[in-house]
């Protein structure tokens, strides 16, 4: 499953950029005309003068050594660019994923346990609404509320948030913010997490409601366990599988939203880099970054599959069929 998808994706990326009508040499030259000699020299430099199968072979050879190539537009190694941008994107993604998991699961469980309560209604309505708000509009709405309005009306400093950039470099262990750096990451993280959080909350609520009707929940309660223990030890653990699956599958959407979120908050991450590179027909950057993302996506979904065994001990891998 992992191998065919990665091979397919890598080849598809090659094909897309091979058939692109615009020539990278032209986009490199901008508006100016390119004379034939220069064109030949540049094409030879990037190996664009070879037939497609030679290019395809070289492409694989390069990738198998972990070399993502060299950017047409910037002349820099794509690996270096990746090392520069990936940490920012990972930090944003980890924060977003944290929000998604914590708030999504908490809201879902609470609204399932207290069905028809005010909290349940709030969860149901807000999760439906969030899905319909464009990511970029939500980002600007947040910026307006805590980045523009609070400044214009002289609110105290704690209510004022920066609306762009990654903030200072004061981080412990890369993820734990020091001083005011959390203010830079929290708005983009909320924006990025919004849709996924809503999906997780809805899924959590539905599966939790289903699990609560199960016989073993009644048995657990009859054994004299407290309600908290029943809900968390027996209910939550059993209801997690579909939710974990959703979180894994949703990563592709998260990457898409990251392009928009990073644009809105001028966050120097992988999403904006890819978007710019696509516009400039800078195929090595697009291919390199996208391949890394696709591999990450596939590997995380593999992890999700493995995690099923933790949530449901009846699922065992490599030990024949489950009973």
């Amino acid at each position: 499953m992992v191998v065919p998808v990665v091979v397919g994706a890598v080849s598809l990326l090659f094909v897309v950029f091979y058939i692109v009508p615009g020539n990278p040499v032209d986009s490199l030259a901008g508006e100016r005309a390119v004379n034939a000699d220069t064109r030949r020299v540049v094409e030879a430099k990037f190996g664009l003068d070879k037939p497609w199968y030679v290019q395809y072979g070289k492409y694989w050879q390069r990738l198998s050594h972990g070399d993502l190539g060299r950017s047409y537009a910037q002349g820099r190694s794509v690996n270096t660019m990746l090392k520069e941008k990936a940490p920012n994107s990972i930090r944003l993604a980890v924060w977003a994923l944290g929000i998604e998991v914590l708030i999504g699961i908490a809201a879902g469980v609470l609204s399932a346990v207290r069905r028809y309560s005010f909290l349940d209604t709030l969860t149901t309505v807000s999760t439906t609404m969030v899905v319909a708000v464009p990511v970029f509009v939500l980002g600007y709405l947040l910026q307006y509320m805590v980045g523009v309005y609070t400044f214009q009306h002289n609110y105290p400093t704690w209510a004022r948030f920066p609306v762009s950039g990654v903030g200072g470099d004061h981080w412990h262990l890369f993820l734990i913010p020091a001083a005011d750096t959390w203010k830079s990451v929290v708005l983009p993280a909320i924006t990025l997490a919004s849709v996924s959080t809503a999906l997780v909350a809805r899924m959590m609520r539905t599966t939790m409601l289903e699990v609560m009707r199960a016989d073993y929940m009644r048995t657990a309660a009859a054994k004299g366990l407290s309600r908290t223990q029943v809900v968390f030890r027996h209910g939550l653990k059993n209801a997690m599988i579909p939710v974990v699956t959703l979180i894994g599958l949703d990563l592709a959407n998260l990457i898409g939203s990251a392009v928009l979120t990073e644009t809105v908050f001028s966050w120097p991450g992988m999403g904006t880099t890819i978007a710019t590179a696509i516009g400039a027909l800078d195929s090595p950057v697009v291919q390199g970054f996208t391949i890394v993302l696709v591999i990450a996506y596939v590997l995380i979904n593999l992890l999700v599959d493995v995690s099923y065994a933790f949530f449901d001990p009846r699922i065992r891998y490599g030990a024949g069929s489950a009973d």
Partner: protein
Amino acid sequence: MTDLQPEPAPGPALLAAESTAPVSARGDVWRRFRRNRLAVIGLVVLTLLVLAAILAPLITFYDPAKLDPVLSRKPPSLKHWFGNDLLGRDLYTRVVYGSRVSLRVGIFSVVIALALGLTAGAAAGFYGRWIDSVLMRITDVFLAFPYILAAIAIITVLGRGEAAVIFVLGGLGWMSFARIFRSSILSIKETEYIEAARALGASNFRIIRRHLFPNAIQPVIVYATIFVGTAVLSEAALSFLGVGITEPKPAWGLMVAQGKSFLIGSPHMLFFPGAAIFVTVMAFVFVGDGLRDALDPRLRGG
């Protein structure tokens, strides 16, 4: 969405209706749909949207392309309900005309996605075997790609514009239709009523037309409704990023992109088109949810 309130006890009128002659399946669906308040609100909003798109010249008072530098970035007023944009164009007019662009993109892209998805899904579901495996692997590869990135890449190749957006959204959106249609065909193929029809001597064609298709298409219809909403959303995102609809067409995403630079002085430039996107997508999601609950009460969330 319907499970916000406990199921209302059927009133006497309802009981009477149920005890009379058999209700047609379609009437049944409509009756269940009508009981869902949010779905009805969604349907009303959608109707208003379609009317607004058709009657745009009658309900607006300016030319959507008329520039007026004096009115640049004017806040909402009685004469200009939503204010004016950077070039002094009336925003209310442009937002109303924008519904035409959004609905066109949504509807045409869903038609393309349906055509491709149903063909692939039907082929995979009916024939099975290697066609099934190949088609499903292809959908896996497509699904592993971040949608927005693939769309940006293809539009860079095709060139920007409405036709390209429609083509891309449809061309990248068919996978879910294929999967849904395939799995519902597979599950229905095994049901007893198909077996019964076959035992009664119905021809293959009759079975497909009378039993398989009408039942397998239901989840597809639900997803198609929601798809139109997400297509509107994606079109706005692409236009916002500069790889979608181009000026001077009044597209909501473009208006948001223009408004983003003036968030400090003129937030109305961003919020009105943003709200239009939100309301439209919301309406499609409500109607889709309502249809799902009405078509198959067993699937109700919770």
